[in-house]
């Protein structure tokens, strides 16, 4: 298998405004020295605690931001910006509310320059792929969360990108819908042979979906370890989640994540306390 995506010593820092009283901006390292490859056609899952820079990683891949240093290569060439060779699926669907399901799917096709009959045909085909045949003319507000995400997936797949980037796409859905969509996503992946980079904070989801799972550390985000998931029975009917091997892998990732989650929570409390401190400082100066 050839390498599709390659992260080479990627760093990303943000300038954040200093606390009240201090005016100088401080630097915040979101990602530090990220190094890993994703193979063509691979299903790669990235799992990490909240605030570890997972979404930043995806923004970089999408070409929406640039790394501070290092480079990201796709097919050996550095990313120049957003393009239709990558499709992003967001947690909050990001459907255009003034367009119907069909209109939303056609939006991406239009951006690609596909017109007329072919566009309508493709939209129908991909609505069918995600199981929404009768819903072409529904507006997003007339669809359930799961259906919206199906439309969003269809929209990204329709313009035929090589890589599908998914940012916690099922996090806002209920457990049943999530499981259904997970298994359908696997079917779609097998059918379309896309390279998928899937971000999640759910360990079960990571083990169930990924061929490999990259575990990230909290602040600054680094790749702690990449774990192979050698489960083969993904397309079978049996309950993969009750497989003892599934449990073992789940526990392995859980152990890797535990310290990181604790650290992330400690950071969060610290941040909140900092904010409260700032607020009270502001109040004091207001009184004076």
């Amino acid at each position: 298998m050839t390498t599709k995506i390659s992260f080479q010593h990627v760093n990303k820092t943000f300038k954040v405004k200093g606390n009240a009283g201090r005016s100088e901006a401080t630097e915040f390292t979101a990602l530090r020295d990220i190094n890993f490859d994703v193979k063509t056609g691979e299903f790669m899952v990235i799992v990490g605690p909240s605030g570890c820079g997972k979404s930043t990683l995806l923004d970089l891949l999408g070409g929406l931001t640039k790394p501070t240093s290092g480079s990201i290569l796709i097919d050996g060439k550095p990313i120049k910006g957003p393009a239709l060779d990558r499709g992003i699926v967001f947690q909050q669907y990001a459907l255009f509310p003034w367009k119907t399901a069909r209109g939303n799917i056609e939006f991406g096709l239009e951006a690609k320059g596909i017109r007329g009959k072919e566009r309508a045909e493709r939209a129908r085909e991909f609505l069918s792929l995600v199981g929404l045949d009768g819903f072409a003319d529904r507006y997003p507000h007339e669809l359930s969360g799961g259906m919206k995400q199906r439309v969003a997936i269809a929209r990204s797949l329709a313009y035929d990108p090589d890589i599908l980037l998914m940012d916690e796409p099922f996090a806002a859905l209920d457990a049943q819908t999530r499981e259904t969509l997970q298994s359908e996503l696997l079917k779609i992946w097998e059918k379309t042979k896309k390279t998928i980079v899937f971000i999640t904070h759910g360990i079960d989801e990571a083990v169930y979906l990924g061929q490999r799972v990259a575990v990230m550390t909290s602040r600054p985000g680094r790749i702690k370890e990449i774990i192979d998931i050698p489960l083969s029975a993904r397309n079978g009917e049996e309950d993969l989640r009750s497989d003892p091997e599934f449990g073992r892998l789940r526990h392995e990732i859980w152990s890797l994540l535990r310290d990181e989650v604790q650290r992330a929570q400690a950071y969060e409390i610290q941040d909140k306390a900092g904010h409260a401190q700032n607020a009270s400082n502001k109040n004091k100066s207001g009184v004076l």
Partner: protein
Amino acid sequence: MATAEKSVSLPIGSAQRRSSAIAAPLGIAGKVLKRTIAILALAATWEVVPRAGLVETAFLPPLSEVLQAWWGLLTSGELWTHTEASLIRSLAGFGIAIAAAIPLGLLIGWYKGLSELLTPVLELFRNTAALALLPVFTLILGIGETSKITLIVYACSWPILLNTISGVKNVDPLLIKSAKSMGLSPLKLFIKVILPAAVPTIFTGVRLAGAGSILVLIAAEMVGAKAGLGYLINYAQFNFQAPEMYAGIISISLIGLLFNQGLVTLEKRFTAWKQTQSQ
């Protein structure tokens, strides 16, 4: 409101369904009564209070006399002359304001630099009451149509301009991100995403401007006009024709009501996706 009414008419059991067949016409009658009862009470009070001698009939004649005067003005054609003059002014001002303020608002909302440059001036002007500028417009543009229409343009422009700016600025960043990820150029992004997303907010401004156009119109017509409903009201008051004065006031209320209703209907059509979303 609407959802509450819907849930009332939902048949639950078969027994209730049978009774609802009878109750349906009664329900409609009840709804009509609910909507009109306050108006009817107001009309009755207006009729009774002057007749009972609680107020001077020269200042507040009973409603029936007012309606008679209104009918008289209508049949003589006088009412139409004034209404026509008023409508032309108000629609012209409203139209010019839409044509000027929406493009300007789009520019200011989109270009950050322009927004930073113009915001102080905009803040200053929008907090200056339109009617405070009426003497200025009269001084510069005379007492003819130009100054009146200019005043209406001025008053209508602010709600449209400010709503357009905020509509463009407050588009869901995720939608922009999503469109950008598909490699849309800035111009395409503006036309395909920013503009449609801003339409509901822009329309709110247009509706506010519609109400505002009638409001300042009347004031403008009270200063040096020869026709128009504002003129009619003022003129009738000078000549102690209280019924005609109230007839003019009622006409203005009805026009305002119709104008607003028309704009609301238009708004619903343009923003169907948003309307149903908020229900």
